[in-house]
């Protein structure tokens, strides 16, 4: 990423904020599934949700350099929050039976999930922001595992290993049912992805975003130029947790299921793989990585599921050895070489 030798930071940021024609093409392409792959809309919806999750991780991993192996904790909190909110509870209160009606309205669920995940992110950010390198990896792993264990233990609340039952999601905007073909699901997920993406894009192309990149490159130096490293990381981490929670809620609402798979180590690890595959620190890296990974996994699930681990392992090794900046990094390198011919 070259910065103009002359010109201020403002100009640089303004330049980055302009919409590149490829970006517009990308977002138009997300409308293609309606036309080209109408039978794949459920998959497209889950890709959009996973892309949102990967985007949230990019904020901390790609931009602030925080390697988190426990990010699914927030995805799971959001997923379970939205699910539990929609359930109807009956309990005894002062002698009479009270029925708490489930709040299944999707928008409400999103807000609630964002709040829960954001709070959890804020609380843990105090721990996470203080460490780097291997210690940080292990602490985020530990937090993720603790979250998974809590979800497993509290089966009176989460359904534990049997998954959450009784989820009752209302129609979107009161009108649109989550249908068998996935039209509503995909439209909803895509819309939320786009809106949040706009927000994140604004954020990374702001002085805050620049500070995050500075923190990633040189943790020690940043306070010397007046950027409070820990506070910035905490903020980024909280925002990332909130977005992850929104993604989790989307999954629960579009599938009416919530299980330990939304909070376990596998989900944390998958999203790291996706982000690196696509290219971290590039806004679109998570989106591209999620698309490639999920499509590949879907294809493998029908052809040769036992070999999925083999190919994903091989692919990881290849990406690390030959495509260190992910697919997008490789593409932009080719593009640059072609430009300079």
């Amino acid at each position, binding site marked *: 990423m070259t910065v103009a030798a002359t010109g201020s930071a403002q100009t640089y940021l303004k330049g980055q904020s302009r919409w590149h024609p490829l970006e517009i093409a990308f977002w138009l392409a997300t409308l293609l599934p309606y036309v080209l792959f109408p*039978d794949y809309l459920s998959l497209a919806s889950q890709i959009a949700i996973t892309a949102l999750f990967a985007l949230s991780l990019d904020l901390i991993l790609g931009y602030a350099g925080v390697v988190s192996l426990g990010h699914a904790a927030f995805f799971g909190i959001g997923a379970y929050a939205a699910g539990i909110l929609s359930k109807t509870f009956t309990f005894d209160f002062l002698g009479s039976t009270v029925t708490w009606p489930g709040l299944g309205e999707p928008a409400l669920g999103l807000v609630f999930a964002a709040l829960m995940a954001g709070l959890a992110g804020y609380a843990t950010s105090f721990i996470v922001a203080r460490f780097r390198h291997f210690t940080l990896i292990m602490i985020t792993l530990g937090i993720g595992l603790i979250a998974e264990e809590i979800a497993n233990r509290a089966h009176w609340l989460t359904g534990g290993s049997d998954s959450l039952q009784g989820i009752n999601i209302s129609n979107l905007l009161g009108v649109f049912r989550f249908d068998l073909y996935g039209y509503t699901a995909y439209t909803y997920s895509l819309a939320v992805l786009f809106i949040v993406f706009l927000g994140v894009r604004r954020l990374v192309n702001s002085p805050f975003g620049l500070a995050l990149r500075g923190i990633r490159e040189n943790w020690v130096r940043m306070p010397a130029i007046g950027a409070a490293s820990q506070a910035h990381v905490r903020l980024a981490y909280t925002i990332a947790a909130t977005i992850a929670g929104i993604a989790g809620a989307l999954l629960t609402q579009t599938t009416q299921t919530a299980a330990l798979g939304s909070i376990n180590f596998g989900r944390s690890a998958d999203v790291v793989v996706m982000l690196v595959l696509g290219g971290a620190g590039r806004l679109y890296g998570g989106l591209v990585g999620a698309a490639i990974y999920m499509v590949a996994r879907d294809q493998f699930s*029908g052809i040769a*599921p036992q070999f999925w681990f083999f190919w994903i392992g091989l692919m990881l090794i290849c990406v690390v050895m030959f495509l260190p900046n992910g697919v997008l990094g490789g593409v932009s390198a080719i593009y640059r070489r072609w430009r300079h011919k």
Partner: protein
Amino acid sequence: MNRFLVSAALLAAVLAPGAASAQDTVKIGVIAAYSGQFADTATQIDNGIKLYMKQHGDKVAGKKIEIIRKDTGGPNPDVAKRLAQELVVRDKVDILAGFTLTPEALGAAGVAQEAKKLMMDMNAATSVVTEKSDYIVRSSVTLPQIASTAGNWLATKGGAKKAYTMVSDFGPGIDAETWFQKAFKAAGGEIVGSVRMPIANPDFSAFIQKAKDLSPEAIFVFVPGGAQPAAIGKAFAERQIDPKKVKIMSTGEAVDEQAVKAMGDVAVGRLSAWHYDYNHKSKTNEAFVKAFNAEFKRNPDFFAVGGYDGMHLIYEALKKTKGKADGDSLVGAIKGMKWDSPRGPAMIDPATRDIVHNVYIRRVEKVGNNYVNVDIDTVKDVKDPTHK
């Protein structure tokens, strides 16, 4: 960006839905966890399916049977639901089958209900599954069936007055504990204590010591399959709890073939209640085991029987409906069906669509150089106790 669009276009070309499925094919979508931790379960279910089709051909009532397999990667209901949707919408399957674990079955239930397709649960053992849709039939087993039989038998014919329960702390374990205790107490026994062990638990000595502290005459154990059965069996021996002196009762998973092989002598005397063992002496089973070994070079287990019997029900139903494969016809045909399964006589309860079969009480004994589960008693026609 270009790379993405190109590959998307290629995908479209390769995967464009083919011509509408021929009228004379019945497609079955098998959804199971073929990769990951539960891969072996899915493999055995699949082996059961494959063996049935080999023995009975792939044509029934004039229709060709086609199997489409999809991997969920584990107990992921969101993936199972999506795969079920894709199978119904894209591949136009007539029947959904498989389901290694409960969350997968719960995820797909809504799809079966909405699309009105028969859903054959070949493994998931939580009672509530069959209640989630009118189109779900179970060919495997339910845990309450087994646990309550075990509790009842142990207090009556087993002659134990006091029991201690040790189960893994997750859905099936808690189910097992609840129904064992209920039946044991109802038959006059007393539960002297209980403990729930963490699901990811490599070491049992702490929990066994807690049991030993109370010197119970009987212990009920439930752990998930895999490494834990052998580990807990060996831990009993290390803490010097002898199955020949203390009645250790469990479900079949805790004394499966690999577990008893690994435990060796310390397994002798272990009691269990289960619906299937490869060692069960019946003509049907002996033929089944022989054919299974010839094809797959290993013994069948209850997962394989779930798959095998599931296919049997589908075939017989198609024969009855003369090839009509819509959900209502098939479910109607299956309700009340009785057949001679390798496990023994079996039936699908017309009211609940759940499996009704014999539960055998077995004891581990050394036969020649092998350790096997030998039937010592039979409790006939056990229904799942939870359905109203």
